C-alpha cells in the first residue's frame, strides 16, 4: 500500500493538466474546478512516499513521488494565488484562453514539482515550469519571453549538471543522507538562486516583473519563483557546509540590497519587484541556515507567495483605476477605496513582517534560529533587512492610501467592482490566516 501516493500523484496531475486542456477549450470555470479537485486529491498523499521505479536505468535515474507538509504548504499557497489571480483576471478582462491555460500550466508544473521525490523527476517538472512561465511572459512580449527563457534555461542546465553529478554519485532521491559534491551543490544552489531572484542572479527579475503586467507578475512571484525556494529547501540538507554558508551570506546581501532598492523606488510594480529580490534573499539565507530556520523560511516562502501576488494585484487595481503608478502622484485612496486599502494594508504589513500577518512567523523563526546557527551578525543583518522592508511597505501604503499626493492634486477614484475585490479579499484573509497559524505549523515542518 506504500504506493497509494503514486495513484494520488497520477490522479492529481491528470486533473491539473485536464484543467489546462479545459482552459484551452475556453471553459475557465470548469478549469478552476478541475484544478481545485486536483488540489484536494493531492492532499490525500500527505506523508506518504512511493517506492522507486526505474526510468533511465543506465544513468541511475528513478521515478519516485512523495508529499510532506512542506510540499503541501507550498502547493496550497500557490493554488490559492492561482485561483485568486484567475478570478481577478476574469473580472478585469485580461483572462484570454492562452493566459488562463498558461497560468494553470504553471500551477500544474508546480504541483508535480512538489510531489517529485527523485532528482530526475524534480528536474522534469522544473523544466515544465520554465516552459509554462516562458509562455506566460512571451504572451505579453515575445522578445522578453525569449530572454527570460535563456536566463531560466541557464539555471535549468546548471541544475541538470548538478543532478547529473548527483546521480553519478548514487544520490537518487531527495530524502537522502548523501552529501553532494561541492561543484554540484554550487551549481544547484546557483540555479535556485536564479529562480528565486537572489542578487546577483536577479537581473532577469525587474525587467520581467515590470513589463508583463501585474497579474502575470503575481503568478510569477507566487507560483514560479517559489519553486526556487522549494528547491533550495530540498537540496540544502545535501549540500556541503562551505557552499551553504556562502549562499547564506549571498542571501543576506540580497535581502538588504533588495529592500533598500525598494525603499528608493517610486513605481508600484518596481517596489514590488525589488521587494521580491529582498525577500528572495531572506528566504535563501534562512534556507541555507538550515534546521528550524529552514522550516521558518519555507513557511515564509509560502506566505510570500500569497502576500506578493496580493500586492501586485492591488498595484493593478490602483494603476487601472487611477492611471497612475508613481506613489508620489497617488494618495488618499483609503477614503474612496476602503476595501482595496485593507487588501493593500494586509499585503504591506505582511511584507513589513508585522506580527499577525503572513511573513512574520517565518521571519521570526528564521532570525532566531540563524542567530544560533550562523551568528549574531548574520541575524542582525537579516533583522535590518526586515526593518528596511517595513520602511518601504509602510511608506507605500501611507503614500498611496493615507497621505495626500506629493507631486500634484489628485482626485481618488471609487472602489472597483465586487468581482475584482473578492479575489483580493480572499488573499487578504489567507495572509492573515497564515500569519496567525505560523506558530503552530512551523514546528511540524521537518527539513
Amino acid at each position, binding site marked *: 500500500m506504500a504506493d497509494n501516493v503514486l495513484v494520488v500523484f497520477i490522479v492529481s496531475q491528470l486533473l491539473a493538466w485536464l484543467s489546462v486542456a479545459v482552459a484551452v477549450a475556453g471553459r475557465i470555470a470548469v478549469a478552476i474546478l478541475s484544478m481545485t479537485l486536483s488540489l484536494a486529491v493531492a492532499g490525500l498523499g500527505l506523508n506518504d512516499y512511493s517506492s522507486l521505479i*526505474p*526510468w*533511465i*536505468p*543506465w*544513468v*541511475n*535515474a528513478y521515478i519516485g513521488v512523495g508529499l510532506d507538509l512542506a510540499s503541501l504548504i507550498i502547493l496550497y499557497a500557490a493554488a490559492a494565488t492561482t485561483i485568486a489571480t484567475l478570478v481577478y483576471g476574469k473580472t478585469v478582462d485580461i483572462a484570454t484562453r492562452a493566459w488562463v491555460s498558461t497560468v494553470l500550466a504553471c500551477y500544474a508544473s508546480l504541483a508535480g514539482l512538489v510531489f517529485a521525490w527523485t532528482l*530526475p523527476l524534480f*528536474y*522534469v517538472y522544473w*523544466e*515544465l515550469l520554465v*516552459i509554462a512561465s*516562458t*509562455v506566460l511572459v*512571451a504572451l505579453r512580449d*515575445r522578445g522578453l*519571453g*525569449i530572454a527570460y*527563457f*535563456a536566463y531560466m*534555461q*541557464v539555471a*535549468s*542546465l*546548471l541544475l*541538470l*549538471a548538478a*543532478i*547529473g*553529478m548527483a*546521480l*553519478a*554519485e548514487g544520490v537518487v532521491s531527495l530524502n537522502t543522507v548523501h552529501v553532494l*559534491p561541492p*561543484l*554540484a551543490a554550487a*551549481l544547484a544552489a546557483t540555479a535556485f538562486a536564479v529562480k528565486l531572484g537572489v542578487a546577483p542572479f536577479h537581473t532577469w527579475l525587474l525587467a520581467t516583473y515590470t513589463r508583463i503586467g501585474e497579474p502575470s507578475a503575481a503568478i510569477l512571484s507566487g507560483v514560479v519563483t517559489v519553486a526556487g525556494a522549494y528547491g533550495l529547501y530540498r537540496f540544502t540538507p545535501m549540500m556541503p557546509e562551505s557552499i551553504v554558508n556562502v549562499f547564506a551570506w549571498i542571501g543576506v546581501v540580497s535581502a538588504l540590497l533588495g529592500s533598500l532598492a525598494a525603499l528608493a523606488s517610486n513605481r508600484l510594480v518596481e517596489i514590488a519587484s525589488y521587494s521580491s529580490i529582498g525577500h528572495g534573499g531572506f528566504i535563501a539565507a534562512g534556507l541555507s541556515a538550515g534546521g528550524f530556520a529552514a522550516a521558518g523560511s519555507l513557511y515564509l516562502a509560502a506566505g510570500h507567495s500569497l502576500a506578493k501576488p496580493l500586492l501586485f494585484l492591488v498595484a493593478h487595481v490602483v494603476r487601472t483605476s487611477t492611471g497612475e503608478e508613481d506613489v508620489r502622484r497617488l494618495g488618499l485612496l483609503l477614503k474612496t477605496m476602503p476595501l482595496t486599502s485593507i487588501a493593500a494594508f494586509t499585503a504591506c504589513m505582511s511584507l513589513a513582517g508585522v506580527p499577525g500577518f503572513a511573513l512574520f512567523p517565518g521571519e521570526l523563526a528564521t532570525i532566531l534560529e540563524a542567530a544560533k546557527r550562523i551568528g549574531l551578525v548574520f541575524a542582525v543583518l537579516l533583522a535590518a533587512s526586515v526593518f528596511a522592508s517595513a520602511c518601504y511597505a509602510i511608506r507605500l501604503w501611507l503614500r498611496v492610501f493615507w497621505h495626500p499626493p506629493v507631486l500634484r492634486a489628485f482626485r481618488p477614484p471609487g472602489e472597483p467592482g465586487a468581482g475584482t475585490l473578492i479575489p483580493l479579499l480572499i488573499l487578504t484573509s489567507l495572509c492573515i490566516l497564515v500569519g496567525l497559524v505560523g506558530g503552530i505549523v512551523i514546528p511540524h515542518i521537518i527539513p
Partner: protein
Amino acid sequence: MHLGENMVDPMTMLVLVYAVSIPLAFAPRIGKTVTCLAIAVAGIIALTLSRESISHVYAYGLPLLELHGELGVAALLLNVFLALIVAGLAPARGAVLALTLVASASSLLILMADSVPVLLLGLEAASIAVIGLLALEDKRVALRYAVVSLFSASIIVLGAAILWANGFKTIHGLGGPEAALGLALLVAGVAAETGLAPFHMWVPDVASRGSGLGLSVAALAVDTPLLVTLYRIVSGIEPGLPYVATMLLVLSIASMCVGELSALAQRDVRRMVGFSVVSDAGYIVLLALGESLSGRIGLWPAIVFATASGASLALAFASTRPGLGPVYGLPLATSLLCLAGLPPLYGFPAKLSVVTAFAEAGLPYLAVIAAVFFVVSAVYNVRYVVVNAADLASKPSPAPFILYSFTLVALGLAPHVLMVLGGV
C-alpha cells in the same frame, strides 16, 4: 560465431526482406506500403539478431558484424523512424522507394560493422542512395554531398589500408604507435561524413537546399549510425595515443562551439537544424572520449543521444522545404523541442544521459561544458518555436508524422523500455 552457423536464419530473413522488397517497391499501389513494412520488419529482425549476449559474426575468418542489444535497439528505432518518414513524405515512385530500402539496409551495416571494410561498404551504399534521393530535387546539392562522401570514403580507405597492413582487423582496440596514422585518417574520414568541425562547411548548405526526404534519410541511415560507430571506434581506442585523444577533444569542442553558436545566429530553420547536426556530432565524440578515458559510460548514453538527435533532425528536415520554411507545424515544433532536450520528449533522457555520463566518468567539467552548450541549443530551438508559434499552429500535420511525434514523447516518458527491448 561464423556466418552460416546458427545465426544464419535471422540473417537470411533480413537479407530476404530487403531482396524481396526492393523489386516490390516498383509495384504500383503497393510499393510504398511494402517499403514501409519492409523497413520496420527489418528493424525488428535486426533487434532479434542482436538480443543475444554480445556476439560477433565472421565470414572466412574476417570480422563482419558486431551484435549488441544496444545496437539492435538503435537499428529498430532508426528503421521505425525511417518507415514513418517514408510513409509521410516519400512519393510512390519505385526508384525513390528502392533507394530508401538500400539506405536502410546499408545503415544496418554501418551500425553493426565490426571491421572497416564492412563500414565502408555500408557507408558507400547508403551515401549513393542519399545522393540519388537528393538528386531527384536538386542536382547541385546531390553533387556537393557526393563530393563530400567521396572525399571521406577516400580517407577512410586510406586509413583502413594502413590499419589493415598493421594487423588491425576490427574497429576495436586500436592502439599503439602503429595504429596512430591509420586511426587518425579513419576518424578524419568519418568526421568529414558526419560534419564534425572543421569538416562541417558543407552541412548547413546541403541542409538548407536538400530535399526533405533525402536529408531525413541521410540523418537516419547515414549520420546517426555513423555517429554510433564513431563512438564505438573512439571509445575502443586503447590508452597510449594522447595526441589522437587531444585531436578528438579539440574537434568535438570545436564542433559544439561552431554548431551551437552558428545555429544561434540563423534565421532559416534548415540552416539552424544543419548546424545542430554539427554540434550533435561533437557531443558524441566527447562522450566517446569520456568512455575511452574512464570505461564507465557504456554504449547506452551514446545510443540514446544519437538516436534522439537523428530522429529529431530527420523529422525537422521532413517538416520543412528549402526556401519555404515549415510545411508541417506540430512535427516541426516537436522535433525542435526534442532537439532542445525539453521534457517529456526523447531529447530529455538523451540530454540527462550525456550530462550524467560525463559525471560518472569522473569528468564533471565536461558535464558543465555540455550543459552550457545545451543551453544554447535550447535557446535557439525554443526561440524558433515561440516566434513562429502562430505560423506553426496553422500548418497541417500528416498522420505518420503525428505518430512520429508521439513516439518521441513515448520514448521520453519511458526510455527504460529501450533497455527492456535490448534485453540488456
